[in-house]
């Protein structure tokens, strides 16, 4: 890439331009990297239950909470409207209450992003729910045979929220 190095005092114009473009690319790349690492937290679309623990989210502060709907945790409260479930990232878990329509892909073991805030009792009250799906695509027969073989990925069947951290799978 740099043939003109011996006589760098008098580079050919095109090599001069190449060096210039290279330096500019380094500067822009560096600036972008610095900028984005400073924005790390604000660029994140949602907090996981572990982030909630470590980043100190205040009650009443409006956030998005993302994770997996824990198995056997979804239930309707006696008022018949409120949905109660647990969002987990397999290490930590948060109890959520939500009134309203749920997306089609909302179900136990799959991803969800809840928008809302913590109440004083550390229960997360959601105003809206988004379903998040993972990167796996397959026909139903394939999914069935994987489940039958007992090799369904741990991400789809998370540990119970009460359990301590298991060998963590990707939790978003």
């Amino acid at each position, binding site marked *: 890439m740099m043939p003109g190095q011996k006589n760098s005092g008098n580079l050919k114009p095109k090599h001069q331009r190449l060096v210039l*473009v290279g330096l500019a690319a380094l500067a822009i790349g560096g600036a972008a990297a610095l900028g984005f690492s400073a924005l790390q937290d604000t660029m994140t679309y949602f907090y996981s239950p572990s982030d909630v623990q470590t980043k100190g989210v205040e009650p009443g502060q409006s956030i998005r909470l993302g994770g997996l709907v824990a198995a056997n945790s979804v239930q309707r409260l006696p008022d018949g409207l409120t949905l109660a479930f647990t969002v987990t990232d397999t290490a930590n878990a948060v109890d959520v209450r939500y009134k309203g329509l749920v997306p089609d892909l909302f179900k136990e073991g799959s991803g969800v992003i809840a928008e809302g805030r913590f109440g004083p009792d550390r229960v997360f009250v959601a105003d809206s729910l988004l379903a998040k799906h993972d990167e796996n695509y397959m026909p139903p027969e394939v999914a069935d045979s994987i489940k039958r073989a007992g090799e369904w990925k741990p991400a789809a069947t998370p540990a119970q929220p009460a359990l301590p951290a298991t060998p963590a799978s990707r939790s978003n």
Partner: protein
Amino acid sequence: MHRFANPARFLRLARLIQPWTAAAMFACFGVGLYLALVASPIDYLQRDTVRIMYIHVPAAWMAMQTYAVIAVASLVSIVWRHPLADVAARAAAPIGVAFTAICLITGSLWGKPTWGTWWVWDARLTSVLVLLFIYMGYMALWSAFDDRQRAARAAAVLALVGAVNLPIIKFSVDWWNTLHQPASILRRGGPTIDPSMLKPLAVMGLAYLFFFITVLLMRMRADLAAQRLEAAAERRVMAQEVPA
């Protein structure tokens, strides 16, 4: 590098291969659309909605690939002053806008039934929207100068600066928590798409690629022809002015 710098040689070559890339495009779209919309299986989770993937994902690939072509052509233009590089970069931009728009629109249509929303400001969706704006700014810059050389220089610099967005788009789903799911194909550990769905996706990807090549060649030939007409008109004006 400069073997194809001669526009006459390029035009001969383009005329020769364009019918073949067009034929390949139509064949791939025919086979690909049949496989994607009729012959491929439904998804275990999304059912028939997954078929949007066969339009959406190749459009996203090509939106980024087209920008990469523009960035490389701009580099060649700035460093080596290759006369065809500007023509190629300028011709590719509207195709890239179309791919990006298809990606955003089909993504929105796909988001509503699966995620429950048309749009969110997560890192992946936002960075692709930024790509659309960079494309539009690039095209606007081209037409903001009367002098073609100066327009080419300014546009090439913008294209190179904008290239910083490409890795951001690609890795946005790994660097930040996003609503958009992580990569399914270009990832460590191999694709997570069943082979019965991967094949139609690959054919559709080829169809988009041949579409890009065909339209790029058409637009480059048209641009070179327009430049020749302009030059001829200028010569005529000069010739008329001299005797008077």
